[in-house]
Structure formats: C-alpha cells, structure tokens
C-alpha cells in the first residue's frame, strides 16, 4: 500500500471520516506526513479547544497551525488570541455559547480586536504583514449566543467581515439595535451560500432590501419564529417574498425547521406559510432542484399538487387517515418519521401508494418500536419491496449514528442501511439484532466493532 502513488493515497484518505483519519495519523510516518501536509485532509480535523485540553494543543498549533482550517471554541479560553496568531489559514471558527459566558471578557475582545485590526490593514491596501489576516480566510461562522451583551460586542467587531460562505446564527433573545447589526452583517456578505437563522424572532423587515443581495444561496434555514404568519401572507411578508424570488433559482435545500409541535396555532400558520410559499412563489420548474425539509406533524400533503415537481422531501409524518396524498411522480427521495401505519403491510402500502418514483426512502424511528420494526421489515421484505418499483436504497434510523449495515435484503438492486443513535446505550438490543441477522446470514458491516464494544 505504501507503494501506491501519493495522489492515490490522498484520494483514499480523503474518503475517511474524522475518527478514521485520526487513526491514520498514528499508522506510520508516511501516513502522518501525508495528512499533516494536506490542507484538504487537515480541514477535516477540527481543532477543539476547551479549558482542560487547550494547553496540550499549544505546541501542535505552533508547529502546524498554518494548516488548521477549523477551530471550535467550547470554553472561555484565556490564551485563544495567542493561539490564533499561528492559524493563518483559518476557514471556520465556531464560537459556542460557553465561550461567551463571561460578559466582561477582556481576552475575547482582544481576539476580536486583533481580527478587526487586520481587516483595517487590508482595506488600506498596505502590503500585508506576515501576521494574522483572519477575515480574508474566514468562510464559515457559527455563533450560538444567549446574552445581549455578547451579541452586540461580536457583531460590532465582526462588522467588516465579508468573506463568509456559511453563516449560522442561534440567538435566544435580541434587542432592536442588535437586530439591525445582524441584518447589516448578513447584507455585507457577498459569497454567502448557506444561511441559517434559528431562535431569532425576526420579522419581514429583516429581509428589507435583501432581494438586492449579491449572494446566491444554496441552503436557507429559517426557525419557526418567522413562520408566525397570518392570512394575507403576501402583505405580511413583502420583503421575504422578494428575497425568495431573487434566490429560488439557486436554492438546493430549503429547511423550514422544526416548529412548536404542540402549538396548533403555530402549526397551522406554518402550514399556511409553506403552502403559500410553494404554491405562489416557488416556480414548479425550479422545484426539481430543491430539497424541502419541513419537520412537522401532519404535513399538508393534500395541498401539495402545486409542488409536484419536488424531488427531495423530508417531513415528519402525515396522518394518512386525514390526508390524501396526491401522486408525487417526480419525488425520488423521501425522509419520514416512523408511523404506526408502518406496522402492517397494508398500512405501508396505503401510506406509500402514491410515491411511485421513490429511489431512496429514509424512515426515522424514535421509540422502542425500533427492533420490532426492523424485524417486521425483514420478515415482510418481499411484500415490502414490491411496494416500491424503483427503490434503490432504504435507510432506517433509530436515532443517528450509523452502526451497521446489512445488504442484499431482497435482491442486488436495493441496499439497506440501519443506524441508531448510540450503540452503547442500545447495546442489549443490538446484541439481539446481531444474533438475529447472523442467523439469517445477512452481512453486517462493522460487526467486529460491535462485538468489541459489546464484548461478545
């Protein structure tokens, strides 16, 4: 393997996730040097800083800091500004809430001052000194803040950054003056491709003049606060209407988020908002590029004829007793929550009868129904796969991380993947499943890993 050309070894390493890449760092000098000298691979390895661990990372950062692309700050770090001097090519900075817990945080302000100072130098078109030039490289900024003071300080200091491609903002509460700061900050971005605003009670005024933005968004995520719409949506959201029209040609993912599940008023107004948006303002020929994510109960599919060209859709579930699902001939990818109808073949047939073109189906389970459901699917696999004429892949998630895969359930055309949130907490059930699927000679990838964890 060591004799493979360097470019091929890099291709192989590039397929690996963080965890495997970290293992490869310890395999040999050759592997380690390949990874440390590849900006692409180093970009995959986040630099995670917190109070207890950060000290140990100083030497590494001094040595390899110019390759570090991502920093996640989890704690208040008194020495962070010193470390940033060595990370000249930083692409992504994640500042989570704990970093801002001290309102009078002189060190944090020092960091932000330092970044701002560099911005000023570049604006004056002076030859750039060989010190931190942060803002030119910053492409991804995620900010999670709980208090007003930090919001104001950060956005005042970040004011001149305009190189972001991804901006994610989570704020619990906000005053009007800070609201304007954020609005101005976003409008400064010229290359933004992904915008996510959650928990921020923005209104239509926030999008005033946004239709004139130069950025072309591929992904837009909005929290439910924005959806507290009433009737006459076009009058209520004239600015957002213009903004959406200006962006819909580029949008690939529209995430309307998770709304207040038990608040019927919000649910209803959100449905109306979504229907309005798709019916009136999302041109049907552009829907084919769009993945719509709409995590809500009772998805209003009976009103969905106007988005018949949609190709990819994620929603929680639709109560098939109250909702007739029109044919979704173009839909190739569907991601739904486990539903009690799925426990019988007739229920499954009824539920999916109109999704005639599905190629990928993703079912998420959240209860203890998991293993019974998996066994049900296995025992009824021939009937199950008859429902879908074009299905190439089925994924069943019981929470999150992929733990094992079994393949060739029915024939060679369909791949099935099962995942769960946390294999350690689900260990007793996994033992049962492994035994079950072993008994039927199903190939379980990563089985060795599980045997190790479970000490089988």
């Amino acid at each position, binding site marked *: 393997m060591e004799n493979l050309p360097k470019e091929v070894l890099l291709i192989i390493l590039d397929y690996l996730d963080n965890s495997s890449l970290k293992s*490869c760092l310890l395999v040999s000098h050759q592997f380690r040097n390949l990874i440390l000298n590849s900006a692409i691979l180093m970009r995959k390895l986040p630099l995670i800083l917190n109070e207890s661990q950060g000290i140990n990372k100083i030497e590494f950062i001094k040595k390899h800091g110019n390759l570090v692309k991502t920093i996640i700050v989890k704690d208040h770090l008194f020495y962070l500004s010193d470390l940033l001097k060595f990370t000249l090519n930083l692409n992504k900075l994640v500042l989570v809430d704990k970093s801002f817990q001290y309102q009078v945080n002189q060190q944090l302000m020092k960091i932000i001052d330092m970044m701002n100072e560099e911005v000023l130098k570049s604006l004056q078109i002076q030859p750039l000194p060989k010190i931190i030039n942060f803002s030119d490289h910053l492409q991804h900024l995620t900010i999670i803040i709980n208090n007003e003071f930090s919001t104001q300080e950060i956005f005042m200091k970040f004011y001149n950054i305009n190189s972001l491609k991804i901006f994610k903002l989570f704020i619990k509460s906000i005053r009007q003056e800070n609201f304007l700061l954020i609005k101005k900050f976003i409008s400064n971005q010229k290359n933004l491709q992904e915008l996510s605003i959650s928990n921020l009670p923005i209104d239509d005024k926030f999008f005033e003049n946004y239709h004139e933005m130069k950025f072309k968004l591929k992904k837009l995520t909005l929290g439910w606060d924005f959806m507290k719409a009433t009737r006459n949506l076009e009058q209520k959201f004239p600015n957002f209407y213009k903004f959406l029209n200006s962006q819909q040609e580029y949008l690939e993912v529209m995430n309307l988020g998770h709304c207040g599940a038990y608040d019927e008023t919000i649910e209803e107004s959100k449905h109306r908002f979504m229907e309005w948006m798709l019916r009136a303002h999302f041109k049907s020929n552009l829907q084919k590029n769009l993945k719509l994510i709409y995590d809500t109960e009772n998805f209003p599919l009976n009103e969905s004829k106007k988005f018949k060209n949609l190709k990819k859709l994620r929603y929680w579930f639709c109560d098939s007793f109250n909702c007739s699902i029109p044919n979704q001939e173009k839909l190739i990818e569907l991601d739904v929550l486990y539903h009690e109808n799925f426990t019988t073949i007739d229920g499954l047939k009824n539920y999916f009868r109109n999704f005639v073109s599905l190629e990928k189906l993703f079912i998420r389970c959240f209860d203890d129904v998991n293993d019974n459901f998996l066994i049900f699917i296995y025992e009824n696999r021939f009937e199950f796969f008859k429902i879908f004429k074009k299905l190439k892949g089925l994924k069943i998630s019981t929470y999150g991380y992929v733990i094992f895969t079994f393949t060739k359930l029915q024939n060679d055309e369909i791949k099935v993947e099962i995942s769960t949130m946390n294999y350690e907490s689900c260990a007793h059930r996994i033992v049962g499943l492994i035994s079950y699927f072993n008994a039927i000679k199903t190939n379980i990838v990563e089985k060795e890993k599980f045997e190790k964890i479970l000490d089988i």
Partner: protein
Amino acid sequence: MDIDRPSDPQVSVVSSDGTMFHTTLKSILLSGTIKDMIEHIGEGGVENMGAIPLQNVDSKTLEIVIKWIEHHKDNIQPTSEEIKDKTADFIDPWDENFLEMDLDKLYNLITAANYLNIPQLLWLSTRKIAMLIKNRTPQEIRSLFNIEDDWTPQEIEAVQKENQWCEEK
C-alpha cells in the same frame, strides 16, 4: 476521426509483459489516457493503428481492467470532477463483487485505473481501501495492509500527545 461512430471496432492493447488483449473501441474509450491517444491519431487511425502498448500495466491487471470496462461500456461515466461530489450511498452490486480480490491485485488495479485515467474505477477501488481502513485502530491498519511500524516508543508517545488537538474529551 469520429470516435462516436455507431460501429464498435476492435482495438488491441499490449500489457507491460507482452500479452495482447482485444476489446472494443467503446470499452477502451472509458480510459481517459487511451481516449487522448486515439484522439490524437486522426482520421482513419483506429483500424490501422495496431496494438496500443501499456507499459505500466501487467497482463493480470489489464485482464481485470478490461473485464470492468467491457461491463460498463454502455454506462455514462462520471468525470473526475463529478466523482469529487459522488457519495458512497449506493454501489452497483456487480462492482462490489468485482472488487472482491486480494489486496495486491487491488493495489495494482488502483495504480492501473490511475494511470489509465478511469475515474469511476479509481473511485470504486480507492473507496474499497478506505472502507477497509474505516473504524480500525492504527495497529489494525498496519496489520491489514502490512505497513511497517516505524515509530520509536518516544515518537509514538509524542505524536499521541500531539494528536490530542483533534480529540474531544
């Protein structure tokens, strides 16, 4: 030369150890390297050009490559650029079976796919190696791929300490 002609003429290739293989033009054009060579020959060149020498591919490997390109000759092949965005969600079961081979053969196949510039085959074969690496410890990776452990005890202690930069605790 019109390489998109409806007929599919025979083409011969010769491995580094002198074995000649015959295949079709449509199949061999999946190789970007050979496609470039043929495109430079010009009018009427294919029928008269003789066997194409492939100095970097031995006969055992070339036989495997030809099996793959002949199976995929009618499929639309992604470009190197398109491969970069490709996810590993669904692999053709034929390809999965095809790649069931020992590691030495797989390395030779990867080297050949790289040399012949067959992006899809390179993607499949390198991905196969990546899947073998996944979720293994450094020692397991060394054992599986027969890689020499060239760390001294002092070095391994130092790099393990250094590695803490990407470990969340």
